[in-house]
């Protein structure tokens, strides 16, 4: 009896250990590069190239940050990147929500929606890069100082992600709730805004975050479309190309800040603790 109990307890213990190990590995996989990035950003470049490599920083310096802030292009690039990310995420989430709602409520629109969304995902993006650029030139949005053209492209890129994220949320809302609201006297518009939207809030916030990060990080189209009015990823790219490892690391570190801020700001909405319980 006791030995049985003991061995199962041991098993539990080793299982917990294994779980911890896996968690530690995953966290390390994400944390170590981050740490190295921070170290490179905060130490003289010589330390980054020291051999054998040194794990702990020796001299700390803010010189790389100073040099990044000294770049005249930085301010406009930050504003442009942020504007593009916010606008594209908002557009993608709004349109994705509409598409997702239609997909969740209609059989035909569901199959059409899935076909469109997965089709868009299967398409190699580089194949449409040049046509897109041509189209933006025609619209007068190519390399626009506001980044409007890039925002449009990013919104289109992010739309499938937004739609799929929102779809599962809308599909989980029982249709009876809509029928009940309709019988209570709500117009279809009101049903959507009063019944469906509040319940999908968490998923829409998640979709917004994903779209925001997608745009904030996007490099290929940004490089192609914003050739002179750059956003942050191409700026970072040019730093790296020209071997400025220190300032590049500092800029990369700085780029993480808005993403973290957006995630933290939307966290209360993400945890949908109020959901459930409407149906028995």
């Amino acid at each position, binding site marked *: 009896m006791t030995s049985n109990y003991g061995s199962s307890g041991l098993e539990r213990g080793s299982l917990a250990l294994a779980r911890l190990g896996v968690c530690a590995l995953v966290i390390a996989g994400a944390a170590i590069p981050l740490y190295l990035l921070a170290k490179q950003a905060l130490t003289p470049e010589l330390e980054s190239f020291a051999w054998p490599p040194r794990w702990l920083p020796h001299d700390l310096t803010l010189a790389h940050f100073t040099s990044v802030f000294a770049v005249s292009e930085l301010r406009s690039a930050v504003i442009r990147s942020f504007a593009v990310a916010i606008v594209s995420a908002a557009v993608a989430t709004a349109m994705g929500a509409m598409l997702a709602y239609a997909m969740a409520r209609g059989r035909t629109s569901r199959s059409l929606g899935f076909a469109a969304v997965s089709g868009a995902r299967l398409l190699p993006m580089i194949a449409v890069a040049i046509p897109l650029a041509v189209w933006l030139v025609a619209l007068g949005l190519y390399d626009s100082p506001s980044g409007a053209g890039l925002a449009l492209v990013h919104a289109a890129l992010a739309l499938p992600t937004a739609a799929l994220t929102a779809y599962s949320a809308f599909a989980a809302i029982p249709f009876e709730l809509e029928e009940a609201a309709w019988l*209570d006297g709500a117009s279809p518009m009101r049903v959507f805004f009063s019944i469906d939207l509040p319940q999908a809030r968490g998923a829409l916030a998640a979709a917004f975050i994903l779209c925001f990060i997608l745009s904030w990080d996007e490099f290929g189209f940004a490089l192609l479309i914003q050739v002179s009015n750059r956003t942050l990823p191409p700026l970072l790219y040019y730093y790296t190309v020209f071997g400025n490892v220190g300032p590049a690391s500092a800029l990369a570190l700085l780029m993480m800040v808005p993403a973290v801020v957006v995630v933290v700001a939307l966290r209360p909405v993400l945890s949908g603790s109020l959901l*459930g319980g*409407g149906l028995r």
Partner: protein
Amino acid sequence: MAELAARNLTRRFASGGGISDISLTVATGEFMVLLGPSGCGKSTLLRLIAGLEQPDSGTIEFASGGPGDGGRRAIAMVFQNFALYPHMTAFENIAFPLRLRRTPRDEIEARVALAADTAGLKIELRRYPAELSGGERQRVALARALVREPAVILMDEPLSSLDARLRGALRLELKEFQRKVRRTIVYVTHDQAEAFGLADRIAVMCDGRIEQVGSPEEIYQRPATAFVAGFVGSPPMNLFRARRAAEKESLIADGISLPAPVPRGAGDEVTVGFRPIDIAVADAPNLIAIAVEVEDSEFTGSGFLVRCRAGSIVLHALFEEKPARGERRTIFVDPVHLHFFDSASGRRLE
């Protein structure tokens, strides 16, 4: 006065099911129960009345005027699973129909309080549905249906998702509720105990048709069709086919001879029925005797429900004492307790 009148309603579904050519009137203040097995079309009929479905043909007229409210009628509905809005508190749920009508805030508060009270809600209305018990959710749903004072309240199996004890308690409360609010209620259920307990009149449905409409007593005592006879009553009525005897005015079934008067309008074959509760175990003048062999019995609390066999016919009878398996007995039925149905149409014969 008729509160609502459905005429020749038909709604078929591609997947099968639906209702065919149903006509039904419900009087003002009446508690009408639609009773039937699952798939009989009772929920479809309710949804047609609600306006959630459109009929293929036929009309529904309301005494409270035509469709107002953007196509909607002055009706409220309580759903089987309550359909409470999970992101709103109990108060907001009940107030939702009033908010949509731009009712002033103080009036909303007064009417929500009144509706909650009538529905027997004794909880903090600031709580969310997820924080409420099944019975409390049920009451919130009732209060929400009641708050805008509809002419008709529709209920789709509102008790079926509750556990048995709560169901019994809420059934009594529903009846009290109906007495207080004096609304017309159309109530769907497959539970005949619920139907008998609540209904002023019952519409028994089968295969998309109404078999019979009547008071619970009428339905039980004079079932209009063989289906109603077999569906209503617990334990169910014994039903078997019998042929008209060649020479005499009597009926013969396999193993049973019924010296009963053959009903008028009967064809060569009729369906005969009698309830287990109407079977006597002791002889008396004018009773019909049936020799049976006991096959099995189960204890029901007040006695034993006995399955026995007369020839190839299986009959159920209620005994006070437990019979032995394989025992040969004679059971007796008073001819006045016999029901006759046309075997082809299922219609009652007198």
